[in-house]
């Protein structure tokens, strides 16, 4: 007996068509491909840089230990060619360390201020200004270093040249602060408001909430912010080329001029004739730079894991 009318019956759900199922598979494939492509690109970049650098290992003028631990860089000397990059490595590291020791406290501090303490209107204004700061091209920063900063340093310290480690470090700090601020602010914003309210309801002051609750729970994001700042500093080329003085020496003080790995490659690659030893060795410094940043990232990764396990 069936006295249900046609309209009472539930419509039968259509079977999914072959096209839509195939479409889903295709989409899945594309997404997987774009995920894997990140790995492929990194490996490919490493491979091509290394391929350009490899011939140097067969040159009689080259010695890997001297390359790493000798400070004498005379790639175009007619009689005695020396490819020591120690001064360049030290230059890169010292400029980065100086920049980070200024940029990290300022960056994290202003991120905390923007996210936790300032009024909504000021917050909007500050965020726009900081984004603007991040958008200034590096050659403009280099120009500021070369002119304004250089003159200021000479008049304040009496140093003979204004383009030096201090100048480069300050310029790099100014360049990395916006990145650190915006990433760190995102990390703090991601901490649920319920944490803040729970802590405040327990009678904590704003500052106690920041260092007892927010900093611990946002530490991964904050570390990522610092890492991106370091990455920016190590990789920055044009601004340091203009602001550090570009002298190959191991610095003994803040007012010594230095040259970084990146600035060296940028300045000399145009001059080196293709497939000469000089050309290959510049690519090898590229590999060195690659390994350096990789080491920084790896260390940070271990640090994060260490914190997590705890």
């Amino acid at each position, binding site marked *: 007996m069936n006295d249900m009318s046609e309209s009472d019956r539930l419509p039968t759900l259509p079977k999914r068509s072959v096209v839509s199922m195939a479409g889903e598979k295709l989409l899945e494939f594309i997404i997987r491909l774009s995920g894997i492509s990140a790995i492929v690109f990194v490996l490919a970049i490493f491979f091509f840089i290394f391929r350009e650098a490899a011939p140097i290992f067969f040159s009689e003028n080259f010695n890997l230990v001297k390359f790493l631990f000798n400070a004498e860089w005379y790639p175009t000397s007619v009689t005695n060619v020396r490819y020591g990059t120690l001064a360049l490595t030290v230059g890169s590291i010292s400029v980065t360390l100086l920049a980070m020791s200024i940029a990290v406290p300022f960056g994290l501090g202003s991120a905390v201020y923007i996210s936790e303490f300032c009024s*909504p209107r000021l917050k909007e204004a500050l965020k726009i200004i900081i984004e603007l700061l991040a958008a200034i091209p590096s050659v403009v920063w280099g120009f500021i270093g070369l002119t304004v900063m250089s003159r200021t340093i000479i008049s304040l310290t009496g140093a003979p040249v204004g383009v030096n480690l201090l100048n480069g470090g300050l310029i790099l700090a100014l360049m990395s602060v916006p990145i650190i601020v915006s990433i760190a602010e995102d990390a703090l914003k991601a901490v*649920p*408001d*319920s*944490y*803040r*309210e*729970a*802590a*405040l*309801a*327990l*009678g*904590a*002051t704003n500052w*106690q909430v920041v260092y*007892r*609750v927010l900093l*611990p*729970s946002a530490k991964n994001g904050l570390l990522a912010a610092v890492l991106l700042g370091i990455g920016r500093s190590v990789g920055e080329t044009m601004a340091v080329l203009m602001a550090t003085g570009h002298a190959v020496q191991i610095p003994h003080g803040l007012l010594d001029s230095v040259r970084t790995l990146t600035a060296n490659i940028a300045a000399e690659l145009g001059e080196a004739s293709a497939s000469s030893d000089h050309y290959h060795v510049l690519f090898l410094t590229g590999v060195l730079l690659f390994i350096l940043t990789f080491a920084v990232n790896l260390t940070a990764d271990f640090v994060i894991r260490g914190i997590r396990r705890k």
Partner: protein
Amino acid sequence: MEHSEKAIEIIDLRLSYGVKEVIHGLTFDIYRHEIFGIIGPAQSGKTSLLRCLNRTIDFESSATVSGTIRVDGSDIRRTKDIYALRRKIGMVAPLPVGLPLSIYDNVAFAPRSSGLTKKADLDSIVERCLKQAALWEEVKDRLHTLGTALSGGQQQRLTIARALSHQPRILCLDEFSIAIDPVTTMRIEDVLKELRKEITIILVTNLTQQARRLADRTMFLWNGDCVELDSTEIIFSDRPANSKTYEYVNGIFG
């Protein structure tokens, strides 16, 4: 019951979010050492009322509060030390908010915030509060693991322990039993009966029977108005003053 001392005095409390008024002029007192039940359907202003008490409503930028609230005789809008006020009032939220700290640090958070640093003192506070919240036996061997890794019910008891850790004069429980199994709920209810000797308890609950079991007086709040406030026996009797109360507690509407 001695009704001489007032723990909280509320006079013509009004609260609006933007232009929408959600509490329309409440006036009542809460006496010391009583369990004060607040019942009422969703959106009736129960949680907002609690947030007015410890002034966490201040974080809501659209909220405007008028009227007077006195805690221990002093007006909370004029208080100089908002942090001391918040420590005086323990607050337990309906869904547990375990801070991303260890179990120990969660409970020691408020004492530390108020400046207590001695390890022995902190240890004894942590142990006592966890015992009061019926959680000690389950976590005593892993006090230094993350509090957020506990189960929902355990986290809720952790927040109760935390709310007790600053030795509040008033404990506000906002539907604390949502995430807890009935057995544990009963254990905590027993704890609350014990605690009443020392502190005043405000119990906001959707389980009308819970208010019936625990509260000395119960207020029926509906759409931001107090429909009826009387001793629990009368609220849950066959003839409360307002017929709406009868209908609500007997599940006829609401």
